[in-house]
């Protein structure tokens, strides 16, 4: 074995550990760590693995509920859906790797989140991604967009798990730090959920999957847990390389093995690889573990224990099985063409003992490694910028006489334009469950052999979060639930991916604290448990942080899969109705950004009680079969929502006529983003019935127009405000993003 480097102050610093942290290591283990052990502390105490900045804040989230089978702390959350089944889901970031190497970064993000789900014994049935890129004029944006979408397409498609939706946003705040948040949902039997535990003495540790190589070393500690600067490009070797074919085999083989009752525990080797999987399993079971690294299948010769333990090679899992079953296990794995080896066992003596070539190279208790990182008690301070951006004086904003120009500009803007160019690169149909294809408010998947379906929506408007992190985060939860309600689903669980800047800055931690509070309070009000999540900090480049971006993914349940609603108008001559009411709110809107290049003001006010009633009303209309379409009003406001319902119609060219009565500004009426609004359509004869129901709640409900014709027309108090040929505007909306992505200059 090579000589190990001497532990020096510089070496400690290079491992991302502070002097205080190093002294804490000395205290906790009572001696100097060797080089390999230093590497272990480096990854396990990194922000990415230890949550040392965020943990105290996260305790405020509601995590319990009658359906919750597993809350945060395991690989993914588990929520019961009845019929003996449960959904298993989580969202996770892969931001920094995707900025450095977009294809592999995004691909391995998808692979990692899928492993988190099938590790629990669930078959992954749906993927979604929340993607955020910089402004269109930044030359790197197009390269990153193409690379990330290509990476997700390549990896997801090959594994045979459909990518059923997501979101794509552009804003200059992501110029130096894009966001790639990957979500996966799996289906499991509710009585056979697997946890990351090691169980009793004598159990064997079985290594499964790809061989271990030198890729991804310090991906979690050095890449994910620090800001970007001029040396960022040099960190490319820390990005892992994915092999979706092996992942597919791993899914099938693992699910086959998990049918046996001799499987005690399972953990995937994600961030910090073999180190975190072995230490965490031992720690959770309060057991000891002995491993021999000489038995680990290796991709190349001459790898040191340090490299083997810190490698983040993809597509690897660690099983704990009862002794005597190893031959059967290995036979199944070999059938699927996978490497497998018994590399250790559970022992009486506590701690993790690791040998290599006959010598002990690591001997550490589990507590200091897994739970020993200091809770950093970060300071918080309200940022000063809020005073500057908080005021928006509408009287200084020139009001156009007609809305046509703003309307077509918004339709062409890539935050609103169709995401067809993206989702057509994803296999969104494989496995024959996707009842509602991408491009609607929520994706809906049937659950085979039951009458049920689940709906998923992922959402965050980070402009609102920048203007008010508490309200912005609350809005993300409310809107995501509204998306589900538009499909007919009742929200049952939430997972979040909290993307923020450098936690060492009190202003960033203030944003974080506010956003977590906003999610927590709203979930409590809507009675939705937070069952899993991920925190991604240090999303900054050269001191410039992204907007606070607490992405939430909410999962909903539909009891009757034949009662699924979609957003497209179905027939000419149907009435168009608006649930909810519109206020004069333009703060943080897409209209303000696209037309005036401003992100100012206050986000539209969220009235939780009203929001809840609007959603319940919408679900009741769907249940009773009274409506033919439902679509949430969000970016671009009422005009864009109605236009999207026209474009999503099964008929080739479906127009609409809106006759609005209002005293507020025309632009606020049509493009403002007031919350708790849903556009519905229905046959005229049902109007009275719907109005009566609305009165009973009570929710605001107004008839605003009719479907049909070849024009999109909107009049305000009898005066024409917008008139556009539906075919022309549909073409603009449909092709805008693809044209941008395909430009070669």
């Amino acid at each position, binding site marked *: 074995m090579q000589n190990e480097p001497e532990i020096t102050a510089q070496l400690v610093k290079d491992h991302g550990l502070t002097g205080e942290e190093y002294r804490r290591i000395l205290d906790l283990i009572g001696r100097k760590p060797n080089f390999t052990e230093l590497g272990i502390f480096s990854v396990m105490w990194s922000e990415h693995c230890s949550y040392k900045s965020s943990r105290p804040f996260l305790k405020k989230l509601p995590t319990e509920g009658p359906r919750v089978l597993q809350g945060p702390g395991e690989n993914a959350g588990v929520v019961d859906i009845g019929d003996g089944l449960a959904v298993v889901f989580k969202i996770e970031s892969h931001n920094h790797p995707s900025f450095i190497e977009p294809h592999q970064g995004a691909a391995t993000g998808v692979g990692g989140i899928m492993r988190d789900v099938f590790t629990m014994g669930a078959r992954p049935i749906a993927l979604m991604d929340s993607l955020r890129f910089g402004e269109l004029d930044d030359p790197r944006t197009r390269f990153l967009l193409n690379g990330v979408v290509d990476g997700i397409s390549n990896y997801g498609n*090959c594994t045979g798990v459909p990518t059923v939706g997501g979101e794509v946003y552009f804003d200059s705040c992501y110029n130096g730090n894009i966001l790639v948040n990957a979500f996966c949902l799996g289906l499991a039997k509710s009585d056979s959920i697997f946890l990351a535990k090691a169980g009793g003495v004598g159990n064997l540790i079985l290594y499964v999957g790809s061989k271990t190589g030198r890729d991804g070393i310090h991906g979690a500690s050095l890449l994910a847990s620090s800001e970007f600067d001029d040396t960022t490009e040099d960190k490319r070797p820390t990005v892992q390389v994915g092999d979706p074919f092996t992942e597919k085999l791993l899914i099938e083989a693992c699910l086959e093995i998990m049918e046996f009752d001799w499987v005690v525990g399972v953990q995937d080797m994600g961030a910090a690889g073999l180190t975190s999987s072995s230490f965490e399993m031992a720690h959770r079971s309060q057991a000891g573990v002995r491993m021999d690294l000489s038995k680990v299948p290796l991709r190349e010769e001459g790898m040191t224990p340090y490299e083997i333990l810190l490698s983040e090679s993809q597509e690897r899992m660690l099983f704990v099985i009862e002794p005597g079953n190893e031959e059967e296990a290995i036979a199944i794995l070999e059938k699927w063409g996978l490497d497998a080896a018994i590399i250790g066992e559970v022992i009486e003596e506590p701690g993790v003992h690791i040998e290599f070539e006959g010598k002990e190279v690591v001997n550490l208790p589990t507590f200091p490694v897994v739970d020993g990182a200091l809770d950093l008690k970060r300071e918080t301070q309200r940022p000063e910028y809020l005073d500057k951006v908080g005021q928006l004086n509408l009287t200084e904003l020139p009001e156009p006489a007609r809305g046509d120009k703003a309307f077509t500009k918004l339709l062409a803007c890539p935050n609103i334009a169709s995401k067809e160019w993206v989702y057509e690169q994803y296999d969104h149909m494989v496995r024959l469950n996707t009842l509602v294809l991408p491009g609607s408010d929520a994706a809906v998947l049937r659950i085979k052999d039951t009458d049920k379906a689940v709906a998923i929506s992922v959402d965050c408007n980070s402009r609102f979060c920048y203007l008010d992190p508490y309200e912005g985060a609350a809005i993300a939860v409310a809107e995501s639930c509204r998306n589900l309600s538009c499909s007919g689903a009742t929200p049952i669980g939430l997972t979040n991916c909290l993307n923020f800047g450098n936690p060492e800055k009190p202003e960033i931690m203030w944003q974080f604290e506010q956003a977590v509070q906003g999610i927590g309070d709203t979930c409590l009000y809507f009675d939705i448990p937070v069952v899993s999540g991920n925190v991604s900090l240090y999303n900054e480049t050269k001191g410039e942080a992204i907007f606070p971006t607490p992405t939430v993914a909410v999962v909903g349940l539909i009891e009757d899969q034949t009662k699924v609603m979609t957003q497209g108008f179905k027939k000419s001559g149907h009435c168009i109705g608006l649930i909810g009411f519109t206020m004069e709110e333009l703060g943080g809107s897409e209209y303000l950004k696209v037309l005036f290049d401003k992100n100012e003001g206050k986000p539209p006010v969220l009235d939780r009680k009203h929001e809840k009633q609007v959603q319940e009303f919408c679900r009741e209309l769907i249940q009773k079969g009274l409506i033919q379409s439902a679509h949430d009003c969000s970016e671009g406001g009422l005009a864009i929502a109605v236009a999207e319902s026209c474009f999503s119609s099964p008929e080739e060219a479906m127009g609409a006529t809106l006759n609005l009565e209002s005293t507020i500004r025309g632009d606020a009426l049509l493009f403002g983003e007031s919350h708790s609004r849903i556009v519905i359509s229905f046959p005229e004869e049902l109007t009275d019935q719907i109005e009566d129901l609305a009165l009973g709640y009570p929710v605001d409900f107004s008839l605003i127009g009719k479907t049909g014709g070849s024009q999109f027309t909107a009049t305000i108090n009898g005066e024409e405000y917008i008139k556009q040929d539906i075919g022309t505007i549909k073409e603009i909306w449909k092709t805008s993003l693809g044209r941008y992505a395909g430009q070669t200059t």
Partner: protein
Amino acid sequence: MKCGIVVFPGSNCDHDCYHILKNILKQDTHWLWHKDSIDLSSFDLVVLPGGFSYGDYLRAGAISRFSPIMNSVIPFAEKGGKVLGICNGFQILLESGLLPGALMQNHTRKFICKNVYVRVESTNTPFTQECQDKSVLDIPIAHHQGSYYIDHHSLIDMEEKGQILFRYCDSKGNITDSSNPNGSVGSVAGVCNEQKNVMGMMPHPERCSDPLWPNIDGQSIFNSLIAQG
């Protein structure tokens, strides 16, 4: 009808084909494992499903053709057994030499997943006899290497022998450049061999055969096969 569905490592439309044949169309359906070489003579139909067999490494279908099961499928086909290759299955049939031509990368250089229209070009085969001649099917595609290529003379020869079964078209059945999603020569979406017992197609009929969705155009292909028994 006794159907066998081959599972290659990386097949991922195998379960969808199984679901349609077994649960929707109530056929006697079995799995066939790629490592097995077995006598297939009792089967009426062997399906090579879509997916990414062997990760599509090297070239789609290039490694699968050497699977042990292909040592059973090839003689089965040569004796007149019916073989249906969908998407990756079509690619494997080409690599095995059971069908003529090749599939190249889409001219968009992107994976494409969407509904397209195909026109039925011949109903004189066991795969299409229940379809209306020149009828238009609404059917999804999902592939990266689906641009069919064959030299001009061979294409004409295949047309004359009725081996071109499906062409990409618009909703009214017109064959245009803009209705050709991947740049296939002659807009070809599906072909059969001269004996008409081996068929390969890029679109996925199994994705439009479950009546839970409004579109069940894919059933006409499976029903053609079932009608023969």
